[in-house]
């Protein structure tokens, strides 16, 4: 098991290295002179020189990469061209909000979708199943930002029971925070929940056909336990896969959701940074996104083995 973790760790490191090289060289991929693109063609010479120096574009590639990496490992991701703040600080400040919304969306979707998919699989081909499929199709087709606007319309404008915009951390004030959290999380839950529910259902249907389910029946195990213990554990891996894939959706979705609900999160930061060509911030955010990705994928990968012991840690 330790062997496996070490190997995993090394491959994670390699991936991160590769990505850092990619991210670093991104600025060289911008057509034209990147500095002029950022500052505009009417910028003064002094500004241009300063920025060029800051971005390391006046030094040979390798040198600037090494110094960039060195800074990175110290936690210094540069400073914003627009506001002058250190990028690391900007990201760290905004990360909790985004993480909270994403986690809430994830939790909500798991809470609804797994039981829903389970029930649908048990009531296969009945009207409950058809209603389920219908809801899934609708939830998957509605754009999350539209849902966000609809929720805002219904709950904030018409019913006036939830705030329209803004954010309060649930760690500071739980109930207030919850009020600000629920609509953004809900907007992301629909698509995610639908995909998870659909996969839970189809996975359960397959598992329930397996021989070991009959064996469990023959042992005299009550049906509810067969479903919740014997079947569910075997049905979970594909659901986990979907979860892993949907992290990308969550990360991308937060951009628009945070914009709509005025949540001070990383998504909004990425968006404004890209649009205003705040290159250092963009770099830092891309790195962050990748780290999150790799982290999530690794956890998903490792948890597979818990659910399906046939995938051994150490390949014999």
């Amino acid at each position: 098991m330790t062997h496996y973790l070490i190997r995993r760790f090394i491959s994670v490191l390699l991936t991160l290295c590769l990505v850092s090289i990619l991210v670093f060289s991104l600025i060289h991929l911008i057509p034209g002179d990147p500095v002029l693109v950022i500052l505009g063609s009417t910028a003064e010479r002094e500004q241009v020189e300063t920025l060029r120096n800051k971005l390391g574009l006046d030094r040979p590639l390798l040198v600037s990469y090494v110094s960039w990496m060195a800074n990175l490992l110290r936690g210094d991701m540069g400073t914003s061209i627009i506001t002058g703040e250190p990028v690391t600080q900007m990201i760290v400040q905004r990360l909790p909000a985004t993480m909270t919304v994403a986690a809430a969306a994830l939790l909500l979707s798991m809470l609804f979708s797994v039981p829903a998919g389970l029930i649908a699989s048990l009531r296969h081909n009945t009207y409950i199943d058809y209603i389920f499929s219908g809801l899934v199709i609708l939830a998957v087709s509605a754009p999350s930002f539209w849902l966000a606007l609809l929720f805002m319309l219904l709950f904030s404008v018409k019913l006036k029971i939830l705030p329209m915009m803004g954010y309060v951390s649930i760690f500071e004030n739980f109930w207030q925070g919850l009020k600000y959290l629920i609509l953004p999380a809900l907007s992301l839950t629909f698509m995610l929940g639908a995909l998870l529910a659909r996969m839970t259902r189809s996975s359960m249907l397959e598992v329930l056909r397996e021989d070991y389910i009959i064996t469990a029946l023959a042992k005299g195990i009550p049906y509810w336990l067969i479903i919740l213990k014997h079947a569910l554990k075997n049905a979970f891996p594909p659901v986990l896969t979907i979860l892993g894939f949907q992290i990308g959706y969550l990360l991308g979705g937060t951009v628009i959701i945070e914009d709509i609900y005025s949540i001070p999160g990383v998504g909004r930061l990425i968006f404004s940074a890209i649009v205003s060509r705040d290159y250092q911030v963009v770099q830092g955010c891309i790195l962050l996104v990748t780290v999150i990705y790799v982290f999530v994928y690794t956890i998903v990968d490792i948890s597979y083995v818990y659910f399906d012991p046939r995938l051994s840690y150490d390949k014999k």
Partner: protein
Amino acid sequence: MLVKRFIRNKLGVLGLGIVLFIFLVSLMAGLFATHDPLEISISNRIQPPSRIYFFGTDQFGRDVYTRVLFGSRISLKVGIFSVAIGAVIGIILGSISGYFRGWIDYGILLIMDTIISFPSILLAIGLMAVMGTGMGNIIITLALICVPRFGRVVRGSVLSIREKEYVEAARASGSGHIKIILTHVLPNAMAPVIVVATIYVANSILIEAALSFLGLGVAPPAPSWGNILSDGRNFITQAPWLTIFPGIAISLMVMGFNTLGDGLRDLLDPKLKQ
């Protein structure tokens, strides 16, 4: 025979119906429209739905119904063209990668996986910010997002097909690589491609709407559904109809392509069906 099976699948038929309906609407948008989509009429701004303005008017007095109708053209164009271009390039790359294996495979796979692992929205935003707004750029961006996904699917099929006997036989009889790929490998790899193509069209439509909503897509005053939603957001209290109708349109179109894809999947690979 295939058609008969398809008809039995109610979902697929529904999807096909919706897609055809939307095609029809967009083609004949001019016929169904009641006004000019770009015509401004300040005296009629922010009017609720009525018999003259079926979906109401926006902040410039433009008829929302007509704009939604013409918006379907934008969504369809973007969806279809981006997927078509992405598919062609993706198929080429995927077949080369899967057929020849080795370093080429490794290299292409690496690039494809890197692009796929990035959240599509973020990639799209980044590219559009660099390239500038406009339909052409959107199509290029979305095509780029599709390429590695098609590539992966095709590569998977090719990998399994190349082991089959008839490919070996063709190789043994001296056929050139390209001929083998074109005549034996590709036709059998097409089934999953068609299925995912419909789903990627749905995806592209969603991303285009999101981009336009954020102001990075098709530039106003073009009646992209995302644009209308963006207007709606600024006038959400005064003009809720600006939010409701374009969203329904997007959902409908996405639903159509998604269910069509589901139906095609059940048709072409019954093993996947429950």
